[in-house]
């Protein structure tokens, strides 16, 4: 099982900051697709992903217990 974290616009659109998803052995790109379908999160296409607090590419394969955060374009400063 995996913890999924959503931020900013993604969080508002989904109506939650956190959810559980079975994503083991799926790629980040596949996880994006699943979330896009389940929550109509079109903005996820332009978001980065972080696995366990480090940026990860679309072909990264998720392991048991990984925390996956979807990070819309940032705007700090």
């Amino acid at each position, binding site marked *: 099982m995996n913890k999924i*974290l959503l*931020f*900013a*616009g993604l*969080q*508002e659109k989904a109506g939650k900051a956190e959810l559980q998803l079975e994503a083991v052995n799926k790629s980040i790109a596949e996880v994006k697709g699943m979330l896009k379908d389940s929550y109509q999160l079109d903005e996820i*296409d*332009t978001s*980065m992903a*972080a696995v366990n*607090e*480090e*940026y990860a*590419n*679309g072909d990264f394969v998720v392991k048991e217990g990984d925390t996956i*955060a979807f*990070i*819309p*374009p*940032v*705007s*700090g*400063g």
Partner: protein
Amino acid sequence: MSNKFWISEKALDIQEVVDLVTRREAGAINTFIGTVREFTKGKRTLLLEYQAYVPMAEKKLAQIGEEIKEKWPDADTAIAHRIGRLDITDIAVVIAVSTPHRADSYDASRYAIERIKEIVPIWKKEHWENGEEWIGDQKEQKAYPKGQPDEEDLT
């Protein structure tokens, strides 16, 4: 090292950040203070709301400190970024860089704020008179033209 890079829900104390880089070897301490602007392209902001992925944001701020150390080995850096609701003129970010000579302190400080806008997971939501929106255009340019940032930007 990591206690020099943090996210805060409380008002930032400029002096606290400066004190972290004050040392006998320094001939310059450059501070950058980012504040909440009222008007952007004629549009009036009422308040801002900042959100962060706090543990990762603190790691990425520390990473910027390490990058600065590689580029300017004599530099010492501290960065604090605020989250939550901020009013106009409130301080959103404080960067302090100390170096033996002034030129490097300016360059490293500029580098830090530009990197914050590229890699640190912090978002701001603008509240205007007639609406609100999460802002996502990094460095005030179009965000991620290729759908994701260039890989070299992230490492």
